[in-house]
């Protein structure tokens, strides 16, 4: 897509105004509890101004800088996933009358139009994966579908990948290429704006855009190349799909299990993980009950439980399930790997297990057999 113009930093709030005018609820990055969270955004002053992040395996810290930019950081624990695949929601309710008759209802509530500002390439790639799962399968997930329809996506190109990012290696970033409404490139004094949808156009028309200079365009290109260069982690070469299928009996799984807490943080922060469980919560009078779904994880006991037996009864099987599904099973299911290189599972693993490292070790083992 070509550039639509340049939005001066001082005019950034006109973007929020334009979105509010469209009736959209704006969500964007803010600093909360020592990390970057996506929350309701009413003014640009809430954005993480002069903030840098420092990520490593099991490590995340914010620091302040003198830099004027607002998006000079790599993603925090969550971005889009909880907005469409919400962590906990009621799927349907049942009511029981005094005769024992049951009535089922599911709310078809229309979610609000929601504009998300600051979406990164990896998040869009993961959203596309979740769309495939929740929308293009045998049956659509209607709760997901309703929220998905209401999303306005305002992406920002990454200029500061973290030490855990490897989206270039996974082929998903750092440059945003797809599925956005607006795309911003941040420069010192403002944002270059691109639009890729009728909605994006509509928003652009409300913005006071200046012309973009050639040198600005060059700067953007450079920033993108720099972002690629900054990425130090990468996936192993070769056919991971096949390698993992063949390595189900590897001793590596047990080695990982000695470090892994089986805590499920990796799956919770992974933007493509979709597992969820369902349970009932009867109300105190026992005459109505809510059927709830919530995020589950292949690291949980309930994930593979069948009457009195847990199929993934040890951590090594749980980790194997997670890695094999993400980097192998996914190809057959969705035509590509389930990893978009966001590095979240590395940062947010409390003990700092690094998927790329594990994959390298496994790939090496495969090459050697």
């Amino acid at each position, binding site marked *: 897509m070509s550039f639509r113009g340049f939005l001066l930093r001082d005019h950034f709030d006109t973007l929020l105004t334009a979105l509010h005018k469209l009736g959209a609820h704006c969500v964007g990055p803010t600093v909360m509890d020592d990390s970057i969270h996506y929350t309701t955004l009413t003014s640009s002053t809430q954005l993480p101004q002069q903030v840098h992040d420092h990520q490593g395996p099991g490590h995340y810290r914010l620091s302040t800088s003198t830099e004027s930019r607002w998006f000079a950081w790599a993603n925090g624990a969550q971005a889009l996933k909880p907005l469409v695949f919400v962590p906990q929601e009621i*799927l*349907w309710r*049942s009511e*029981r009358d005094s005769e*024992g*008759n*049951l*009535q*089922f*209802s*599911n709310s078809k509530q229309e979610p609000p139009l929601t504009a998300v500002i600051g979406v990164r390439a990896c998040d869009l790639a993961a959203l596309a994966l979740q769309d495939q*799962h*929740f929308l293009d*399968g*045998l*049956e659509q*997930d*209607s709760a997901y579908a309703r929220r998905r329809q209401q999303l306005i996506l305002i992406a920002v190109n990454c200029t500061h990948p973290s030490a855990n990012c490897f989206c270039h290696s996974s082929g998903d970033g750092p440059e945003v290429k797809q599925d956005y409404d607006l795309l911003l490139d941040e420069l010192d004094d403002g944002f270059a704006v691109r639009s890729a949808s009728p909605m994006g156009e509509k928003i652009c028309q409300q913005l006071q855009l200046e012309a973009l200079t050639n040198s600005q365009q060059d700067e953007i290109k450079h920033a993108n190349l720099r972002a690629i260069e900054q990425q130090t982690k990468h996936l192993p070469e070769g056919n991971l799909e096949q390698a993992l*299928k063949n390595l*189900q*009996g590897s001793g590596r799984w047990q080695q990982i299990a000695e470090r892994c807490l089986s805590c499920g943080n990796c799956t919770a922060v992974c933007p493509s993980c*979709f*597992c*969820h*469980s*369902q*349970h*009932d919560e*009867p109300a105190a009078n*026992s005459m109505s*009950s809510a059927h709830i*779904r919530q995020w*589950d994880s*292949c690291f949980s006991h*309930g*994930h*593979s*439980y*069948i*009457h*009195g037996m847990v*199929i*993934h*009864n*040890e951590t090594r*099987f749980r980790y194997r*399930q997670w890695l094999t*599904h993400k980097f*192998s*099973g*996914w*190809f*057959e*299911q969705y035509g590509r790997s389930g990893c978009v290189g966001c590095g979240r599972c590395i940062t947010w693993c409390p003990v700092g297990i690094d998927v790329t490292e594990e994959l390298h070790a496994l790939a090496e083992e495969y090459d050697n057999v």
Partner: protein
Amino acid sequence: MFDRQTPHEAIVVRRTQESDTIFSLGLRFSDDELNQQYRFQPGQFNMLYVFGIGEVPISIVSDPQSTDEVIHTIRTVGRVTRVLEKLKPGDRLGIRGPFGRGWPLASLQHRDILVVTGGLGCAPSVSIINYIMRRRQQFGRMAIIQGVKHSEDLIWRERYKEWMQLDNTQVLLAADVASHGWPWHVGLVTELLPQLDLDVSQAATMMCGPEMMMLATAKQLLEKRASAQNIWLSMERNMQCAVGLCGHCQYGPDFICKDGPVFSYADVQDRLPRRNI
């Protein structure tokens, strides 16, 4: 097609106690239109919902052409099935379904059939046996091998004995451990395969039960020149949504709820030998 992600109210119209821990429920939707619309194949399953407690996947064992009631044969094991066990005619529950791919009916016509089942009242095999018995002339020879851990676990002895009397039908029973007076084989089901009087290389084989039993049986059948495409098995995993969304029933790249529960051996032979997948 009605909403398969929210339950519909159904009424228990019949309840039969099959053994100490196994019972059958005949169900009808409260909404008669649903009874007319509802279609399924043997080998498919429903999600049964107990008010306030939860849902469980249960195979349908009634005949696909009967619209009177949908029958489920259930073993009492845990939270949900314990409450299901207590239901009486007239009680209400929720159903959604049917789900999954059932037995390959189209490819069974006029062929010899072998059904191998292990464990307690393996419901998916019951559905196909019932189906074939009602249409006996459309199929060739039929053999049923049923294995149980302990001889006491065998239910439907009378039914088996009846079938044993039928023409072109062979029923072989085995118990790993047998109490006194057990007239049939003591040992593994695989040990009964040599006694079959049908040509397994031509027959369609359908299995359900413990994975290791199905694996051992399939291997022996392959040795007898059966083809992997002609061996079918019904798999089981934890299921929450039954429509391929919740991720619990993944088996390698497959979702058992929608890609199965019935698979051809050819589809799963790479995974079946490995436990904990």
